[in-house]
């Protein structure tokens, strides 16, 4: 890379020690039933990002915009179509064999649905210890001890090791998922909507637990959610995604207080607050139309079909995701104007 190249989110100069660097990541899925049999879903379409060691990066966006796909490609549950994911200095899209195994141990994922993501025929002990066996890290007594330790850490009674997932509540199941993710002592965790399926009072328990674990074990999180309030609360920085692309990145406070991208502004204005006085003053910006299909995303700026301030140029020239100020990236021809 030449010295004067403009910074991308992957080379954000304001970050001190990025643990994960994602460059131009693309993930296409074949779309069934296209007229010419060759259509693709542009689920993730050229994403660049960096995640600082020890931070929580929030990822928000509407359903179907590609958040989960991005998360799954990062942890290599799905192969990338093109692009790179660097973890420390290893390119996860290329690495194989022993090195892959060692790297994967450091990267874990927590899933949205605490019901579907746990094998109903395995006991909690087996579920939590499975990664230890798969990676040949520990077995027998040692594995048992490790399992009991992480169960205690996530607030599950270690006496429950022989119970099955259906005997637990949603919040407890999410704790089981977290215990399983922690057992290999990872440094980086992708949490895909870890609290979306939970009741409000239980959400708070899990959010607090994740914050405690991060402080205790120096974890780095990619926290995926569609609820901007939760993401704002837990994240140091936020990346906003629309139709397969990142449209804005900034610190959580900056994203909320001074959204640069019109889509971020719309999201921010749509979130209700539990205060009737503020609510009577809030005017959500309602979007026209619907989220377009990722099979045929709109030309140039993908938001132009719904953007309240779109101009001619928006459908002709794609706005790059540029650094607009220190640590602030936005992909818009008219940033901050909505």
């Amino acid at each position, binding site marked *: 890379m030449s010295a004067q190249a403009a910074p991308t989110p992957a080379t954000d100069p304001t970050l001190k020690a990025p643990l994960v660097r994602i460059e131009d990541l693309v993930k296409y899925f074949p779309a069934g039933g296209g007229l010419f049999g060759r259509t693709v879903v542009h689920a993730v379409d050229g994403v660049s990002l960096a995640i600082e060691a020890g931070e929580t990066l929030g990822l928000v966006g*509407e*359903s179907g915009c590609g958040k989960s796909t991005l998360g799954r490609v990062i942890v290599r549950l799905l192969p990338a179509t093109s692009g790179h994911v660097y973890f420390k200095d290893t390119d996860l899209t290329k690495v194989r064999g022993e090195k892959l195994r060692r790297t994967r141990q450091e990267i874990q994922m927590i899933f949205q649905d605490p019901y579907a993501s746990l094998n109903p025929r395995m006991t909690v002990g087996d579920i939590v210890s499975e990664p230890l066996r798969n990676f040949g890290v520990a077995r027998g007594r040692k594995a048992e001890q490790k399992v009991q330790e992480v169960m205690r850490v996530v607030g599950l009674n270690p006496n429950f090791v022989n119970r099955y997932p259906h005997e637990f*509540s949603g*919040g407890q199941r999410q704790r089981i998922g977290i215990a399983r993710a922690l057992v290999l002592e990872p440094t980086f965790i992708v949490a895909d909507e870890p609290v979306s399926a939970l*009741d*409000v*009072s*239980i*959400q*708070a*328990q899990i*959010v*607090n637990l994740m*914050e405690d674990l991060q402080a205790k074990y120096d974890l780095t999180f990619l926290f995926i959610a*569609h*609820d*901007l*309030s*939760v993401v*704002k*609360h*837990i994240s140091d920085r936020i990346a906003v995604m629309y139709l397969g692309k990142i449209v804005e990145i900034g610190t959580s406070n900056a994203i*909320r207080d001074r959204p640069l991208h019109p889509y971020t502004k*719309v*999201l*921010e*204005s*749509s*979130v*209700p*607050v*539990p*205060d*009737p*006085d*503020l*609510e009577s003053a*809030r005017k*959500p910006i*309602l*979007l*026209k*139309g*619907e*989220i377009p299909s990722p099979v045929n995303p709109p030309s140039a700026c993908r938001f132009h079909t719904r953007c309240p301030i779109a101009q001619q140029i928006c459908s002709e020239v794609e706005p790059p995701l540029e650094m607009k100020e220190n640590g602030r990236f936005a992909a818009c021809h008219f940033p901050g104007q909505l």
Partner: protein
Amino acid sequence: MQDLRVQFATSGGTVTAVDGIDFEIDRGEIVGIVGESGSGKTMTALSILRLIPEPGKITSGRILYGEKDVVEMTDEEIREFRGNEVAMIFQDPMTSLNPVLRVGFQVEEAMAAHARFTRDQAKQRVVPMLQRVRIPAAKDRVRDYPHQFSGGMRQRAMIAMGVSNEPSLLIADEPTTALDVTVQASIIELLRDLSRELRAAVILITHNMALVASLCNRVIVMYAGRVVEEGPTRAIFKNPQHPYTWSLLRSMPRIDETAKERLISIKGLPPDLGKMPPGCKFHPRCKFRIDRCFTEEPPLDEVDPMQRARCWVLMKNVPEPETKA
């Protein structure tokens, strides 16, 4: 609704899903029912239509609609009541629409089913109804199938079917839970407009306190099948008296928070309705409980002329509650 009780006879004994609920709602009013899943919100709503699923039963209480008691209505009367006076909107619009029939036809059927319209009138009204719920290019979309609609449009279509008969009571059970925030915002605006246009009473059932703040005049908070607090929205949010309401409001992250504050979490889980604790049903999770809470269940008492709470202690009597929570 007076002293309503809904029970299920299960293999593990009798489960009381709704226990002694009283409330009133007027035309033009929007009342929110909030609570965690399983707290009895849906059963309360279904009982207004006498639609409690088997083996559930309304075992006591009266549901007065004007002068009439819904519990006592004949089958004929209840059918008429459901068809002409009340509309119910559910969480998942996909499961309530028939996937193989065109959306426009389903809206037409819904109207034709009511005595109020002839088939021809129903046909004529489909496009205006879809326009009324702000489906863009409604004329071109009437011949679409449900899967060609987005989640938000399906919810609009459901609402169109519900309100096509100009009901005087609209019950929306988690109408936006499955939707994105941007879509949620537009559905909430739609419900607000419709309640004005139709002068209908609206019951919004949700677990999202913020939605209630935005839409409702009055709030009912449910816990373990009981109303634990109710009152005008402003009072409930500014001056909650029940520890459950108070904690719930502090357990959700707010987008307008300035400094990162730790969320107040409610420890433990809601009780299993088959194994209810004695005393106050919230006492195993309550941080403000006193001895009496373990053995005696508090009544839903007036704490203010408009506000009632079911608690022996009340938050106004707890100095510096944050330090205890």
